């Protein structure tokens, strides 16, 4: 039988296909024992994988956030040093040297990280997300209702 819907079997068993596509695949499965068997194997495999996702090693979240805070402060300090401080030429040069040293040093010891892509930096500039606490709160309305309660608690403790 021609045109076995191989790439659609995964979306089919996950219930992701549009009605017309779903109907077409279902009709094919009725007539094609190979694809029917294949669909069952895909279903079994996805279930097995979903039930056996390896667990990541535990993290101390307080320490994680403290580290993140330090990294962010260091990055901001570096930016301020580069852009906004008018410095005498000699001092600028030595500061650049020190920063270069730290850049090389930190680049050597931490995982390599690509510079931000222009897309990341440019795409919108429409929504000044992190400048607006209310926008972050409204993310609740856009997705993931399950975390609202814990967020309310978190927001409460931070506001208080």
């Amino acid at each position, binding site marked *: 039988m021609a045109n076995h819907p191989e790439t659609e079997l995964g979306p089919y068993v996950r219930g992701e296909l549009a009605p017309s596509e779903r109907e077409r695949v279902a009709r094919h499965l009725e007539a094609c024992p190979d694809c029917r068997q294949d669909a069952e194997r895909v279903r079994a495999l996805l279930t097995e994988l979903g039930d056996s996702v390896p667990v990541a090693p535990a993290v101390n979240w307080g320490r994680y956030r403290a580290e993140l805070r330090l990294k962010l402060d260091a990055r901001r300090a570096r930016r301020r040093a580069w852009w906004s401080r008018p410095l005498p030429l000699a001092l600028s040069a030595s500061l650049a040297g020190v920063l270069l040293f730290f850049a090389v040093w930190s680049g050597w010891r931490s995982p390599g990280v690509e510079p931000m892509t222009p897309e990341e930096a440019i795409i919108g500039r429409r929504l000044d997300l992190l*400048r607006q606490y209310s*926008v972050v709160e409204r993310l609740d309305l856009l997705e993931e209702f399950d975390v609202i309660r814990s967020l309310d608690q978190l927001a409460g403790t931070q506001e208080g």
Partner: protein
Amino acid sequence: MAYRDEAAFDLLVARYQERAYRLAWSILRNAEDARDLSQEAFIRLYQSASSFAGRAKFSTWFYRILVNLCLDHRRKGRGWRLWLRDEPDPDSGESLLDRQPAPFADPVDALGRERTLTKVWAAVDRLAPQQRAAVILQVQEELTTPEIAAVLKCSEATVRVHLHRALRTLKKTMETS
């Protein structure tokens, strides 16, 4: 930085830290790198917050930053060495699945199943990067095909092909072990 900015950022980190770390670890299989790169994703997020267009789901946008960082890291080769260091020997008693409860009462069956799944997850780690990311986003993060396409910046048809090829490889691993 104003107080409100700090609070907003802290709130985002608190909401996404576990998902970010878990996803990074799934791609990198190294806890230290997963911490480092998920933190880097938050820093990118902070620096490029104004580029969030508001049309995509926020988590999709954030996952895109994070997954790109992780795939770049592994592409450079450092990740592969770390992966080798962390990867359990499929034939030894050590298993990525050690902390998973065995669902079968029969200990022989349970052991066989665990060995098989350890091999299958090791095979996930050997998939081509885009295939691996697609599988992890689907079975672990439970993203839909359109969401995976948005994270990986490709078409839904491409995601379907990635997943089809990945599942074909994994089925073979499952059936030969």
